[in-house]
């Protein structure tokens, strides 16, 4: 009896039974279609990336040329500098990496790649985006309230973040916190949808090991998020109460403990980096398999490795607190777990190399991005090992070395991974091919400046440059000629990189308007999203959902003439 109820419920939750006759609002604004919600997340995320990039431009100008009147912004005061850095970090992690990699590509790909007509809870999906949008608006408004935006770093350590008299931005700090909390709620709703959809809505015949890795990765990332975010929500409520109604949870004078926040934050914070990493790895692997025309090496090993990494990622958080006065014996334990976690990461790299080995590689733009992801992320991972050794970290902590480390991880994830996915699925999303030449110009114009920005920052960090300083002129040993040259080099490279993004925007619009028609399967790929029209119509497969007969990576099968073998083709 309850089984029939299940089937009925699945359709009852589809709020969009009104095919065809949709008005503008119900089609573009209040849509419950997973593809439209994906677009909303994608474009909101990209808009936020532009804002975050602008902030980086302003504070990099201040760092290279202290006191300059920045074109388009004006003179940067210390308070503004702090607000810019803080919100740049928050935006790039919570309003760019998460919405684009998880929410946009998760929403777009999961139903299409597992052969479902939509998410299982379409209205919850719409609500998720609306809450996300609200959170973005609150964050942006917080920059303009009295006192200015919050400037206590994206990690928001108390007592600085808790006490208005210290941070001077009591309203901005609370709005920042509320915005982050709302963003979490949005992703909780989204994550519930992803996991349930993957479990319950797969096409007939699709077994666990027939699911494309990118779907697995996004779902595992959602699970990690769900498991890690609770303590931070608890901590955020306590921080909000400390800020607004005068409790003393983090105030040592009143029996509280400021280090408590660091534990709650990083218990979430470290799994969070894997939350954004996994989707990017999934995207990379799918693209590499497609363009190397080879089966992914060790599909199951990859999957188990990922799960192991996820579990381990809950036991490394205190490597962010080696200098926060934690017990040195505890620091030893966390050094060991941190070194351990680089093993699965290395394994993922070898899996990708083994997949490439002997393939007949097609160097398309998405493939270039996928390869670049591997190469650049490797540098981020390797420098993490230096930081994870608690002895070395005494020197490196809170220097630009740390900053360069996490940009060598986050940038490949959030920017390179996004460009890989965007250029790969663009033909599906918009029905047109992107211009490959422009794509490659944009690729090199992004990758080269990226390295020129951040390699100098490693050097500066090793030279002792602290992360959170507004003007190095006041520190004689950091204000030398050589150091300023490196800072200026990084800033010029940033300007070049930002300029090359215009090529990307031009390419998007030009290809969308007059690009070559893409057809159903321009990349000759196996997965299900390539078996429907581009762009897919409402309901994804109007003539009936596909059946699945094999795994997603059957390229170059010796018994077949075609070098690919779509999942839905009967044997």
């Amino acid at each position: 009896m309850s089984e029939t109820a299940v089937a009925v419920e699945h359709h009852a939750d589809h709020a969009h039974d009104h095919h065809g006759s949709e008005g503008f609002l119900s089609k573009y604004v209040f849509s419950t279609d997973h593809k439209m919600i994906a677009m909303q997340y994608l474009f909101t995320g990209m808009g936020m990336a532009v804002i975050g990039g602008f902030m980086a431009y302003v504070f990099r100008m201040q760092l290279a040329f202290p006191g300059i009147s920045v074109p388009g912004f004006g003179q940067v005061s210390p308070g503004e500098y702090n607000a810019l850095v803080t919100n740049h970090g928050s935006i790039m992690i919570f309003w760019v990496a998460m919405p684009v990699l998880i929410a946009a590509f998760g929403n777009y790909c999961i139903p299409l790649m597992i052969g479902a007509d939509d998410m299982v809870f379409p209205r919850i999906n719409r609500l998720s985006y609306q809450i996300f949008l609200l959170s973005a608006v609150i964050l942006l408004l917080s920059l303009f309230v009295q006192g200015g935006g919050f400037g206590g770093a994206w990690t928001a350590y108390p007592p600085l973040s808790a006490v208005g008299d210290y941070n001077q931005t009591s309203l901005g700090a609370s709005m920042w916190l509320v915005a982050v909390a709302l963003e979490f709620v949005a992703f909780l709703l989204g994550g519930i949808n992803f996991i349930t959809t993957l479990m319950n809505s797969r096409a007939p015949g699709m077994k666990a090991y027939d699911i494309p890795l990118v779907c697995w990765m996004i779902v595992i990332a959602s699970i990690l998020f769900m498991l890690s975010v609770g303590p931070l929500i608890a901590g955020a409520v306590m921080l909000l109460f400390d800020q607004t109604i005068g409790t003393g949870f983090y105030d040592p004078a009143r029996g509280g403990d400021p280090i408590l926040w660091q534990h709650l934050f990083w218990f979430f914070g470290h799994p969070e980096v894997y939350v954004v990493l996994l989707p990017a790895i999934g995207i990379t692997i799918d693209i590499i398999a497609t363009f190397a025309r080879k089966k992914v090496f060790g599909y199951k090993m990859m999957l188990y490795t990922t799960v192991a990494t996820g579990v381990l990622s809950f036991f490394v958080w205190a490597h962010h607190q080696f200098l926060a006065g934690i017990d040195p014996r505890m620091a030893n334990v966390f050094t060991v777990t941190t070194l351990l976690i680089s093993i699965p990461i290395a394994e993922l790299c070898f899996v990708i190399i083994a997949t490439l080995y002997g393939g007949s590689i097609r160097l398309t733009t998405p493939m270039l991005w996928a390869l670049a992801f591997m190469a650049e992320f490797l540098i981020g991972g390797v420098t993490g090992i230096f930081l994870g050794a608690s002895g070395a970290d005494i020197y490196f902590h809170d220097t630009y070395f740390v900053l360069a480390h996490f940009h060598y991880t986050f940038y490949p994830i959030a920017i390179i991974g996004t460009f890989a996915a965007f250029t790969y699925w663009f033909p599906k999303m918009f029905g047109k091919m992107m211009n490959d030449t422009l794509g490659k110009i944009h690729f090199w114009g992004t990758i080269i400046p990226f390295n020129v920005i951040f390699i100098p920052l490693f050097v500066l960090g090793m030279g002792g440059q602290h992360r959170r300083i507004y003007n190095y002129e006041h520190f004689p040993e950091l204000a030398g000629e050589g150091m300023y040259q490196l800072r200026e080099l990084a800033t010029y490279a940033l300007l070049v990189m930002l300029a090359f993004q215009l090529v990307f925007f031009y390419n998007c619009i030009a290809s969308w308007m007059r690009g070559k028609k893409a057809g159903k399967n321009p990349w000759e790929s196996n997965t299900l999203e390539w078996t429907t029209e581009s762009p897919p119509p409402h309901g994804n497969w109007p003539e009936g959902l596909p059946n699945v007969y094999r795994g997603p990576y059957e390229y170059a099968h010796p018994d077949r003439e075609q070098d690919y073998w779509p999942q839905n083709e009967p044997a």
Partner: protein
Amino acid sequence: MSESVAIPLQHRPEPVRPKPLLSNGVLGMMIFIFTEVMIFAGFISAHAVVRSQAAGQMWPPFGQPRLPVQETALNTAALLVSGLVLVVAWFAFRKERSRARIPLLLSILLGTFFVYFQGLEWVALLGEGLTIQSSSYGGFFYLIVGTHAIHAVAALIALIWAGVRLNQGRLTGSELATVSAFWYFVVLVWPVLYIKVYL
């Protein structure tokens, strides 16, 4: 030399759509509850950390009232019974829908009793000078118990909604299971909070 050389053409039986282990509603609710458990775990561990560092190991701190351990024990019992009665309602529903009415109503009443008496307890404690600002002891008490109370009220509203639909004869098994799962969470997390916060 590709890996797939050794694999012969696979023949699989004609695909069928498998029956899901859990309905969408129940699965979604269970994932949500997972997150909720972690939120309470966060509160509880924060509480434990602060308590272990209390000045002079005084807990409650000097000048703060003790929490009413016995009265709340009674209240805890009411909540647990409410959970049990809801289990009864589920089995009654499986036999014949209308038979679930009385146990469901009873469960809601016991739950309301719990929330009401917790409210009375708060009023009394406020009178004795325990406020959310008065100490980290009071802070954690109102924070943790208040969070639980918000969940209890939300779950009760969901149960009432289920009761109304049951009366109209429209309640599905999956809906009842989803709503009940949330109430079980509220019931089962409470003894942990009671032991950690009151004792």
